């Protein structure tokens, strides 16, 4: 097995060593329940609150606005269902065609209704060929019946950033709640929620060097809220269930870790991403970038290699220890290529051959150069096998 070159950080990341260290005491000696009245348990609560403060500091938020959760999906579900429960007379939801399934599938199931209830009216905002949102479409979709606008901050497949500030302003003017799935931006760009017109924000720890199984929902003070998990008084009655102390402590530590590396993400990681992208587009014919070239998080590049299929590319990269993702149908078992690329109007010939590279602060120049060396011959080889390879060459001449 060759050394792993991990360029799939939008899927998940390595737990930072300092995060792992910080968690260890809570997996060994400090196993108490933070809700306990005795000193042994109670001392743990202080560490949970430290983590809350560290996360608030990363987001430019107040600690009391943070609700720890088990993952990004739970946060998204909580936010959307809370908005609907808080404004029961409103029956309209707005989101986008390119959302993560955690939002999209919930919204579509709410639109279906069932059990004798009529579904919510659902507006799915389109995107253009570069994956950018049409704000005019949002403006005309907003009405007095709208309970919530849920729009992701950055797309997980292309890294394209949506203009959440302008979206939030539009929502405020109409008095509509605005939730953003920020799973792919936290730790990648500076965030100051105090100055943003956002009401709720979801995040997930394992996308930025915390372990899997922990996320959070940020709810601006004064926002109407209704819990998803009803139970004990934990998280100020906003999320029942004993806190996963080791994971929450890890999340807090990861928050300080990524805050320290934010500048590096904007400079070194961005430069490596650009080097990879430019190199591949220059050396591989019939390759195209998916997504807006500038309005993106610094770590993500989504490139389509026409006339070849993504799973084949990934498995050949895998032979070299290189880890990436694809929007191809075959990799998901869904038989349809990525809904994001389809919404952008990427032709099927290109969508099936799309590869997403996502870097992290652990990515090195040497690793990027290995990909630049290994991938072009893989594309050539698969095109030789493909009945469309000749077609591709003919189209170029």
């Amino acid at each position: 097995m060759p050394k792993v070159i991990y360029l799939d950080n939008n899927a998940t990341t390595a737990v930072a060593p300092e995060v792992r260290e910080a968690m260890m005491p809570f997996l060994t000696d400090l196993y108490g329940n933070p809700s306990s009245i005795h000193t042994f348990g109670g001392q743990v609560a202080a560490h949970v609150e430290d983590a809350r403060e560290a996360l608030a500091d990363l987001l430019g938020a107040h600690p009391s606005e943070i609700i720890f959760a088990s993952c990004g999906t739970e946060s998204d579900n909580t936010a959307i269902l809370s908005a609907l429960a808080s404004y029961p007379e409103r029956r309209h939801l707005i989101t986008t065609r390119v959302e993560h399934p955690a939002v999209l599938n919930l919204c579509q199931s709410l639109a279906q209704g069932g059990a004798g209830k009529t579904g919510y009216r659902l507006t799915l905002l389109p995107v253009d060929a570069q994956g950018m949102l049409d704000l005019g479409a949002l403006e005309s979709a907003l009405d007095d019946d709208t309970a919530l606008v849920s729009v992701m901050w950055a797309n997980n497949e292309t890294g394209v950033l949506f203009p959440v500030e302008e979206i939030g302003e539009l929502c405020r003017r109409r008095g509509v709640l605005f939730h953003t799935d920020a799973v792919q931006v936290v730790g990648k760009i500076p965030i100051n929620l105090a100055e943003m017109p956002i009401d709720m924000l979801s995040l997930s720890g394992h996308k930025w060097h915390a372990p899997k199984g922990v996320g959070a929902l940020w709810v601006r003070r004064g926002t109407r809220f209704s819990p998803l998990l009803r139970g004990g008084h934990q998280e100020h009655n906003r999320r029942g269930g004993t806190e996963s102390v080791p994971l929450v402590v890890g999340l807090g530590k990861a928050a300080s870790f990524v805050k320290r590396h934010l500048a590096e993400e904007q400079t070194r990681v961005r430069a490596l991403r650009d080097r990879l992208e430019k190199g591949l587009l220059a050396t591989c014919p019939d390759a195209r970038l998916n997504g807006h070239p500038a309005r993106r998080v610094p770590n993500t590049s989504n490139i389509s290699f026409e006339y070849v299929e993504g799973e084949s590319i990934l498995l050949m990269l895998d032979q070299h220890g290189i880890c990436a993702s694809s929007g191809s149908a075959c990799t998901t078992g869904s038989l349809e290529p990525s809904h994001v690329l389809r919404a952008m109007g990427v032709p099927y010939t290109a969508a099936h051959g799309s590869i997403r590279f996502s870097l992290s602060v652990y990515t090195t120049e040497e690793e990027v150069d290995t990909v630049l060396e290994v991938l072009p011959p893989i594309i050539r080889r698969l095109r030789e096998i493909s009945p469309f390879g000749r077609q591709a060459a003919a189209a170029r001449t």
Partner: protein
Amino acid sequence: MWDYTAKVKDHFLNPRNAGEIARPDLDATVGNITCGDALRIMAKLDAAGRIAEAKFQTFGCASAIASSDALIEIIKGKTLQEASRVTNDDIAAYLGGLPEEKMHCSVMGMEALQKAIAQYRHEPFELEEEGKIVCRCFGVTDKLIEKVIRDHHLRTVDEVTHYTKAGGGCHGCVPEIEAILAKVNGTAPAAAAAPAAPSGKLTNLRRIALVQQVLEAEVRPMLQQDGGDVELVDVDGRRVQVAFRGHCAWCPVSDVTLKGAVEAKLRELVDPQIVVEDVGEKLA
């Protein structure tokens, strides 16, 4: 991550038979780039009518490439009579098995072989030419669906999808696949969802009938040419609600298609004040 056998990986990474043959005796392609996989097989016969040389070209995932390579290994040296008896199970067995969801890769191999032989013999290729297209997303005929159900004793729509991809796109043909399953297996068909009865006065009924007629005769054939389709959902006065299926459903220009084609046709042939709405998303 797919659980591929070592043999699948080997034939994917080191295919023995990839390439082209100049002036082949047999040459056929199945699938297309839009569907995500395509296979072309080529072969030359010797004086005794045996397959002396054979090659493939495949666009697709690892199991599609490995299945193609295995198919060529299996048919080399066989007469066309012998080769025509090769099934997709032979391909899967040669590879030590395929994941259930990838069985369609081996079916594609069998289809390409049968098509090449049929064309060589100037016979119709019944799996493609004689059937009626059931799955418009992936161009799968009832003949092929019936064959895999019989050959593999399939019982569910998911199984049919694993073997043929049919039903794996817009899911619009799922009721039809259920009906074929029932027919082949001799069981009672699953109860089809009854369409909502249109309400309204007689003039409204007349309008509904006309709208249906125009959609059937004028609009659907046009969209079907491009792999799409449209379904009438409801007619409320002059408001016609439709849902796009197949390629239209996710086509970025479907808004244009909707306004430009469907509405224009209905205004021209039914009522100049008709307004068309796409409600496919709400139903999806």
